[in-house]
C-alpha cells in the first residue's frame, strides 16, 4: 500500500507541476473550471444541482479528464527514458501500475468534486433562495461512487494500452480508438435493433427505476474495471517492458 502511494505521490507531483504551468495544461484546466464550475451552474440555476443528469454528467467528465493524461502513464515514462530506472527500483509491478491508476482516479475525482463545489457556491450566490440549494445526499453519494468507478475504468483501459505503446502519441491514438469503440459500439448496436426491440428495451429500462439502474451501473463498472486492471497487471512484464 505504501508503495502504491509513493507512485501516486510522484504522479501527482508531475500533474501539479503541469497544472501550475499555464502553458502546459494549467490554462485549459482553468478554462474548464470556469465553464463547468461557474458559467454552466449560473446559467442553469438550481436545476444544475437537482437534475438527475448529474449522476451521469460528472462521471463522464471525470473519465474524460482521466483520459487526457492516462495514455502518458507508461508510454510517457518509456519515451522520456525514465521507465527502466523505475523498473530497476524496489517497487513491485503492482505498486507501479496501481499507483499510476490511483493517481489518475484521484485526479478525475478531484476535478469533479472541485467543480461540483465551485458550482454549488456559484448557484447559491447567483440564485439566492431562502434555503441553501444542495445536492440530494443519496444522489451525491451515487455520483461520487460512479465518478470513481468511471475514472477507474478509464485509467485501467489507458494503462493497459499505454503499457505496449512505444510513444505517447501512439498510446493516445490507440486509446482514442478504444474510447470511440466503447462509447459508440453500444449505441450503434442498440440502433441496429428492430424498432420494437428497441422500444421494449427502453421500456424495460424505464421500468427498472433510478435506483436499480444506478446499482447496475455501479456493478457493471466495477466488474469491467476489475477485468481491465487484472488484464493490465497480467500484461505488466518487467523483462518485456525493459526491452521494449
Amino acid at each position, binding site marked *: 500500500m*505504501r*508503495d502504491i502511494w*509513493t507512485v501516486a*505521490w*510522484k504522479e501527482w*507531483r*508531475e500533474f501539479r*507541476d*503541469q497544472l501550475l504551468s499555464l502553458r502546459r495544461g494549467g490554462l485549459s484546466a482553468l478554462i474548464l473550471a470556469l465553464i463547468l464550475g461557474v458559467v454552466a451552474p449560473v446559467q442553469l440555476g438550481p436545476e444544475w444541482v437537482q437534475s438527475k443528469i448529474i449522476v451521469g454528467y460528472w462521471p463522464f467528465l471525470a473519465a474524460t479528464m482521466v483520459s487526457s493524461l492516462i495514455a502518458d502513464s507508461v508510454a510517457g515514462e518509456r519515451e*522520456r*527514458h*525514465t521507465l*527502466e*530506472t*523505475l*523498473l*530497476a*527500483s*524496489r*517497487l*513491485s509491478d503492482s505498486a507501479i501500475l496501481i499507483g499510476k491508476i490511483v493517481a489518475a482516479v484521484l485526479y478525475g475525482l478531484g476535478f469533479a468534486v472541485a467543480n461540483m463545489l465551485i458550482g454549488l457556491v456559484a448557484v447559491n450566490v447567483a440564485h439566492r433562495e431562502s434555503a441553501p440549494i444542495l445536492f440530494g445526499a443519496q444522489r451525491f453519494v451515487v455520483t461520487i461512487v460512479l465518478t470513481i468507478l468511471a475514472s477507474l475504468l478509464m485509467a485501467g483501459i489507458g494503462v493497459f494500452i499505454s503499457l505496449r505503446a512505444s510513444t505517447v502519441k501512439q498510446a493516445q491514438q490507440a486509446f482514442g480508438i478504444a474510447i470511440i469503440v466503447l462509447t459508440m459500439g453500444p449505441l450503434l448496436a442498440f440502433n441496429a435493433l428492430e424498432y420494437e426491440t428497441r422500444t421494449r428495451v427502453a421500456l424495460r429500462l424505464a421500468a427498472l427505476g433510478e435506483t436499480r439502474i444506478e446499482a447496475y451501473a455501479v456493478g457493471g463498472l466495477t466488474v469491467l474495471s476489475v477485468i481491465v486492471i487484472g488484464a493490465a497487471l497480467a500484461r505488466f512484464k*518487467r*523483462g518485456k517492458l*525493459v*526491452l521494449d
Partner: protein
Amino acid sequence: MAGVNDFAIRADGITRDFGPVRALDSLSLQVPKGIVFGFLGPNGAGKTTAIRVLLGLIDPSAGRAEVLGLDTRVHGAVIRARCGALLEHPGLYERLSASDNLEFYGRAWHVPRRVMQERIRELLTRFGLWDRRDDPVGRWSRGMKQKLAVARAVLHRPDLVFLDEPTSGLDPVATAGLREDLAALAAQEGVTVFLTTHNLNEAERLCAQVGVIRGGRLLAVGSPQELRERQDSGRVDIAARGLTSEVVSLLHARPEVESVVAKDGRLTLGLANGASVAPIVALLVHHAVEIEEVRRARATLEDAFLDLMGAEPGGSGLGGARGAGGGAP
C-alpha cells in the same frame, strides 16, 4: 582464499539470446565486495545486458548469476531492493525538482523521512547541486543530471551500485569532476560499484579490477595493472643510430623476436614472453649500432584493451566491435 560471501557478484556461464543475436555468451565473473569494478567493452559488447541480468530485470537464457548471494532468477525484487542503479539514461523526471526526484526514490526505498532529508542535503551538497535543488531538472545541464542520477543511485545506501557509463556524453571537465565524486563516494561509503564504461582512462583511475567484454564474451579480467603488465612484457623501444636493413633482418631472424618496427631511428620490438633484451642489445652493438636509449614500454590500459579487441576475430577496437553479440536491443 575468498569465500562465497566475499563476492558481490558471481556469474556462472550466463548466456542471453535475443532471437538469433547472442548478447551474452557464457559469461563467468566474480566481483569481490567493496571494490570498484570496471566492465569495459565497445558499444554493443553486452555490458547493458549484463547489468539487466544481474539486476534480475531479464532472465539469462542459460547459466546462473548470484548478486549479493541471491539468485537473479528467483530473487530479482530483493536484489533490486539492495542495489542502486544508474542505467543507460539518467532516468530523471524532468518536470520535477532535484529534491522531488530524490524524495521519490527515497520513498520507494522506504528511507525514513528525516534520514532521507539529511541524505538528500548531504548528496546534493557533495555534488554541488544543493543551490539548484528546487529547479526542475529539465533545465539542468547533462553533467548536473548525471551527478543527480548518481546521487539517486546511492541515496538509500545500497550494498551494490550499477553505473552504466556514468560519464558518457560529458565534457572532459564534467567527466573529471564526476570521476572524483565517484571515487570519493566509493571510498567513503564502502559500496561495491559495478561500472561499465568505454572510457579506459576512467577505468584505470577508478577501478580496482576490470573485465573486458566483447561480443558478449569476457576476454580478460584482473586489475588494470595486471592487464597492462600482460601487454608490457614483450615490448621494447630502442633509440639508436646506424640501423641498417641488414640489422633489422638479423633481428627478424631471432627466435625471441616476434615483431620489428624500425622508423626514424627508433626500433620497436615485440619480444616473446620472458625473453631478455640483453642479447638484442649485444647484437646491435656488435653491428656498430649506436644505442642511445633502451626502454621496456609501459603499456596503458588502452593498449591492453586494444590488444584484446584485436586478438579476437572481428575486433575493431573502441566503439566499433560487435562480434557475435549485438548488445542490448
